[in-house]
């Protein structure tokens, strides 16, 4: 019996979870959990503060990596085989449709959730000092997510994939000077073909996932280092003058310094880890709004994870991932559409290639990147930042409206056709 106990203790070195020390050590001594603080504020766990969108995005990424690796086993990235492998996944591979469905729906979900997460961060003003740079990393992650989705879009090698990528890369080629070269480097030729497929594959399964993981790690690290989550806006108190504290010296001697106390709270957890009772370092006042991550934060994360997984699994079971006819360069569907998240761009391009395809998206990305440095307003209260909120709302609404128009209101020849009108003979 002793040997089992010894094995268990060699794996789990912390104290029992019934003790406060055990709860703390669970976080501290665990490589996977130590990105969490040992204690979290109750207000940070409020669902209506964050909607857990960051977590959902991260869990979708986990689903995508898992299912993606499984899909790699069955996929050969060259035109003669790629489409047949899709059909094999659908018809003969055990749980193939489930696997592909999960990957597909999680990918679309991640694009949406990352975008919504960005909206949440903007509306709560959480990109403001000291979190400016983490916002920039977040924007980079959004772009990487779009890149992941876009490169994955080609891999089924059906008509949908082929023409979406053809349209998408054509939009890219409108960029002055570098556009043509960019398209050629991306496609490995002048049009979508064998070269493009292997390049998109390498980007999709190696380069971009690596970058996404690296930037995600930095993103999480910065969340901790920039002072944890921002406070919910409704908990913000009017700034008050901090009390002066004395550093160094005794009652008789001259102090080393006298300065305003920091408003940022720091935990003295080193004492906790070395075995001192927790109540010595946590003041009774703090007890009110801070709780141990275990189980309070972890159960919420767990629910978020399971809710994300069950949603994606249900979608995979009940909605078949689309697969159209084999890619046919000689037969252009009318209209040929980019992936949905680029349809706003395509809509702009249909009005002006240079303005819509280059200037507008470049300005959008640059504006997003520099938002925290332009917005000098230190207040996070909505009533103090009406302009910022109006502008950002306009940005979101314009994007959504363009995407909706491009998706539902564009028919053959990119003519304005409402979705309730059925057009026949579009492919003739």
């Amino acid at each position: 019996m002793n040997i089992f106990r010894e094995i268990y203790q060699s794996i789990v070195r912390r104290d029992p979870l019934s003790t406060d020390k055990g709860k703390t050590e669970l976080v501290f001594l665990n490589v996977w959990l130590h990105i969490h603080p040992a204690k979290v504020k109750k207000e940070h766990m409020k669902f209506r503060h964050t909607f857990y969108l960051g977590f959902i995005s991260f869990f979708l990424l986990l689903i995508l990596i898992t299912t993606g690796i499984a899909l790699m086993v069955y996929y050969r990235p060259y035109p003669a085989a790629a489409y047949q492998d899709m059909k094999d996944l659908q018809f003969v591979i055990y749980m193939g449709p489930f696997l592909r469905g999960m990957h597909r729906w999680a990918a679309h979900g991640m694009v949406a959730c990352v975008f919504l997460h960005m909206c949440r961060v903007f509306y709560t003003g959480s990109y403001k000092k000291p979190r400016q740079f983490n916002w920039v990393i977040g924007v980079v992650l959004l772009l990487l997510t779009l890149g992941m989705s876009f490169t994955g879009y080609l891999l089924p090698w059906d008509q949908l994939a082929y023409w979406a990528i053809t349209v998408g890369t054509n939009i890219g080629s409108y960029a002055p000077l570098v556009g043509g070269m960019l398209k050629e480097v991306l496609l490995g030729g002048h049009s979508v073909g064998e070269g493009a497929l292997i390049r998109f594959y390498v980007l999709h399964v190696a380069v971009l996932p690596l970058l996404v993981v690296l930037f995600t790690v930095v993103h999480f690290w910065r969340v901790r280092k920039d002072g944890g989550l921002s406070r919910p806006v409704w908990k913000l108190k009017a700034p008050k003058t901090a009390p002066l504290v004395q550093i160094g010296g005794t009652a008789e001697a001259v102090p080393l310094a006298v300065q305003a106390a920091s408003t940022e709270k720091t935990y003295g957890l080193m004492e906790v880890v070395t075995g001192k009772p927790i109540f010595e370092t946590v003041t009774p006042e703090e007890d009110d709004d801070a709780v141990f991550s275990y189980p309070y934060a972890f159960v919420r994360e767990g629910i978020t994870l399971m809710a994300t997984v069950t949603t994606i699994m249900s979608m995979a079971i009940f909605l078949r991932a689309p697969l159209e006819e084999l890619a046919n360069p000689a037969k252009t569907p009318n209209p040929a559409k980019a992936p949905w998240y680029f349809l706003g761009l395509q809509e702009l391009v249909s009005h002006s290639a240079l303005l819509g395809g280059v200037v507008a998206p470049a300005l959008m990305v640059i504006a997003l990147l520099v938002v925290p440095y332009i917005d000098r307003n230190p207040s996070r209260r909505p009533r103090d930042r009406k302009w910022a909120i109006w502008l950002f709302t306009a940005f979101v609404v314009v994007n959504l409206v363009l995407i909706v128009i491009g998706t539902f209101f564009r028919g053959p020849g990119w003519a304005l056709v409402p979705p309730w009108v059925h057009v026949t003979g579009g492919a003739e």
Partner: protein
Amino acid sequence: MERRLQQYFFVLSVLSLLLIVGAAYQASTPAWKRYQKQYVALEAQGEPNAITKAAVLATPPEVHQVMLTGLQRVDRCTTCHLGVEDPTMKNAAEPFRYHENLGPHIPSKFGCTICHGGQGLATEKEDAHGNVEFWQNPLLTKEYIRASCGRCHKDGDVPGVPELSEGKRLFENQGCRGCHKLNGVGGTIGPDLSLEGANHRAPEWLEKHFLTPNAVSTGSAMPNFHFTRDQAKALTYYMLSLTSEDMGSYYSTVRLIPGPEFGRQIFQEKNCINCHNVGGVGQKVGPDLQGVVGRHSPEWLDEQLINPELVYPGSSMPAYDLDGNSRKALMAYLAVVTPADVQALLSQKPHVLSPADVAIEAGRQDFARFGCVGCHGTELQGGVPNPNAQGGEVPSLLHLSDDYTKDEVLAVIRNGRVPPLDNPSGPPPPLYMPAWKKVLSDEDINRVADFLWSKQQKKADAW
């Protein structure tokens, strides 16, 4: 609150577990496993030996597939259609019934979809039969399935499929080439038909289109040829056979070998006897054809049929547009031809053209072969409706010499012509004369003009 959350977590975990189990169950109970079980039971039914019976019943379920690299397809149809090659399943219910009359087309070499259509890779009924979105090649109905023979047997007759030969004959004789290109030869008014069979149009659509072109394709420039239902069906068959499957060598070598009967038909159709004679029966313009197969090598004869001028510069023999198997069939006939047989052919023919008319006859052939008859009619009568052209129809060619010189006519054939408009502000007429100089040699054009001139009639004098 916290207690409630832990319950949520538990419930969601159980739910996701159930979903995984559900997905696994869904994946491990496909319909084809059920069919295989039924088939095995059917097989075991009449088995007297208990051990064999047990062995048959214990056959593990598996996907059956035929990899057809030569036909660029993988067919999994036999996963459910298990009795296709088993004669004892002659009276079994579908999907197990034995496929009769396959002849040399064994499923292991040909699969199923090359003839039947459908989606070979699929293992679910709906998908496999192809009546699903994004699969444009559904199963052909019984009515049209024999059209698939023409996908491989492109030359000559296919026994049991007269529709194909009839469709091909109609295509060549009704002047379809005047507007449609096929394998590089033809006009540009209508779409190129070289790959029509690969466009996956429904046979019903095609048939309706031949009966009344405007009914299925509004605004179509195609005139109504008033085909009968059988003719429309024959043309539909021919259209369905026009694909360009890149067949492996196995398939291209086992196609139909043409026999002398088909050759005799060509011999008669092409009026060889108008110039040639066989043992003295026939005309003396060209050489005697008796024993010609012995006198020359097959390659030489083949060349002579493809391009006579290359063999004998200045030869008056026209270049007949015969495909490879037709040439083979003709040579097979010439190897066995007898004067008596030719006499029999001649007696069927009402009159024999004089040698002077040979060039005109060649012109008539060109006129038919390049599709002029499609608009101008076999008797040059014209009359095909052409809205907003002067007169509202394609003009008759019987009175050309009243208004044109021969040189003017030659120029129109060479360069094409858009007919003058009836109403100058209206839409251009759908039909126009294509420029033929890139398609036809000058010699062909001259022959056609000679033919036209031979047919000219003076208008009945009005005064």
